[in-house]
């Protein structure tokens, strides 16, 4: 059944949506405008919306005159490894939660979900002490493990939902065709959860990319720094280099944005799967 909207309703809804978009995009547009202004114009008062004179020098400076490229590479590497580890844990745990019956399964699942509700800052000190005592401070290994541990509970729940939607007969058919349980899982079940894998991948990527707290606490040298803590370097004791900071921020936003745009349809499918029959 479809309902026809009146012109007034349509305008009201359209207007509300436009306002929402403007509200969401305003900071980004302001950042872009600032990044395209010379430092003197960016810090002048009253602020000008339109960059005049218009310059790309801030982008050139942060990309080639600083370590930003390195930070971006570090973030990309950490995010990729974190996605791999998160998915590895989540697909196996999610499958076990979906398919195996064992004592305390529900309680365990609830407990797993509870861990993702703890605010990061609450366990930052224990995590820092643990990583330091293991001798892993200022290493990618530590960051990847912490990020994966942080994302795995949510990812496990998402993947569990996906595995539950896959008919058991497909696996049984694979057994009859000559597969072991693991072979049936890797060759038949896992390929069918691609939207779920994409959703978990994007969520983990965005989380790792945007994280400041863990990245800042677990790294110390410039060559290990991730992009968000790298941006913080533009906030100095002598002031904030707004034009360069905004240029670096714009560059830092591009990878997650691109990832989302490219995988958007799968991501949405992944998040809504199982919501309706």
């Amino acid at each position, binding site marked *: 059944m479809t309902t026809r909207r009146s012109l007034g309703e349509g305008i009201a809804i359209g207007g509300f949506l436009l306002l929402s978009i403007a509200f969401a995009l305003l900071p980004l547009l302001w950042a872009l405008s600032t990044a395209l202004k010379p430092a003197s114009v960016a810090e002048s008062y009253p602020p000008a919306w339109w960059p005049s004179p218009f310059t790309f020098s801030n982008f050139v400076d942060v990309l080639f005159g600083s370590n930003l490229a390195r930070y971006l590479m570090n973030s990309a590497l950490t995010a990729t490894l974190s996605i791999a580890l998160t998915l590895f844990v989540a697909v196996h745990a999610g499958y076990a939660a979906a398919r195996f019956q064992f004592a305390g399964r529900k309680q365990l699942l609830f407990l797993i979900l509870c861990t993702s509700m703890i605010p990061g800052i609450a366990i930052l000190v224990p995590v820092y002490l643990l990583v330091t005592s293991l001798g892993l401070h200022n290493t990618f290994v530590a960051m990847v493990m912490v990020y994966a541990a942080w994302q795995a509970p949510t990812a496990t729940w998402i993947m569990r939902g996906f595995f539950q939607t896959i*008919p058991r007969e*497909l696996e*049984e058919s*694979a*057994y*009859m*065709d*000559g597969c072991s349980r693991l072979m049936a899982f890797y060759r038949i079940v896992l390929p*069918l959860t691609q939207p779920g894998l994409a959703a978990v991948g994007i969520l983990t990527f965005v989380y790792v990319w945007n994280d400041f707290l863990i990245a800042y606490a677990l790294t110390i040298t410039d060559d290990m720094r991730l992009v968000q803590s790298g941006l913080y370097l533009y906030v100095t004791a002598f002031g904030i280099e707004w034009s360069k900071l905004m240029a670096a921020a714009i560059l830092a936003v591009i990878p997650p944005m691109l990832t989302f745009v490219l995988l958007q349809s799968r991501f949405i499918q992944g998040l809504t799967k199982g919501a309706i029959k």
Partner: protein
Amino acid sequence: MVRVNLQRLRKTFGAVEAVKGLDLTIDNGEFIVFVGPSGCGKTTALRMVAGLEDATSGQIWIDGKVVNDLGPRERDIAMVFQNYALYPHMTVYENLAFCLQMRKCSKDDIRRRIDEVAKILNIAELLSRKPSELSGGQRQRVAVGRAIVRQPKLFLFDEPLSNLDAKLRAHMRAELKRLHYRLGATAIYVTHDQVEAMTLGDRVVVMKDGVLQQVGAPLEIYARPANVFVAGFIGSPSMNLLACRTFGSDGAIVLEGKGFRFRIPDRAFPARRQGGGRDVLVGIRPESLALSVDGAAPLAGLSGTAEVIEPLGAEVLVTLNVGGEDVIMRAPANTNIALKDVVPIAVNPSEFHFFDSETGQRLES
């Protein structure tokens, strides 16, 4: 082709006993059909043979070997599932090739065998499609193809036609029968549809509540049902069952029930030696009943009021009220019966089936 032997096979799920000591031998090349209502244990029995469920006790012999401890892939059995279970991310060709790849067949061999099967099942033009691009009938054909391409020892079918519409189901039933003639392979087929059971099976196994009720050729089961359940389950419309009490008198037996009383020669009553005075259920197939107005001799005392008339084209099903019980009669298409007519019924007593009203077992002479 193999011989399958099930010995005292049992399966319990917690406190529920799904299969209760099933004993059965299936011969080489035999097409055997398990039939029964939902929850009768037929699918559980099939899944135990497949290796998808562990037997609680009892033994499964395939080809002279006990296979209880072997997994599905070690039993060399192919199975067609109710919902086909085609791999959605693979093309039809890949679906057919998958089991052969798992058995390390060469690419040429795979190609040759798939071409052969595609020809038999008329699916050659579908090989590059994904399952989502196929109709129900095509999917069913591919599912069967996936089973036969492997040339397994044994075929298992778990209600493979139940998702198809009536017309397609009849068509695929004939196709399966033709395929069985061609391959001559041993097959176990599970269904709740007694028409499928009767038309497809060399032998039919009727199950209820995890217990085998009767096994035999379809017509044998139809002609001599072992108990009331089989009598009521096999045949459409079902056999009419009338509760009555018997009395012996002068070389005849009197059957008296609610709203009727008639005599039959005592030779027609299998338990005549035990005399009269017992409660029985008399079973009469709808086609054994005729209108006495159609020229058949009436059975004195048996008549009913026409309450429902269902013309089927080739025949008419008439539901009569006989002493408060529904009795269905299969009458010729040109029968002239109107609602509320009181119809005198003719029936040959030799076509009666007698069952003990307590045990439900068939009374034999």
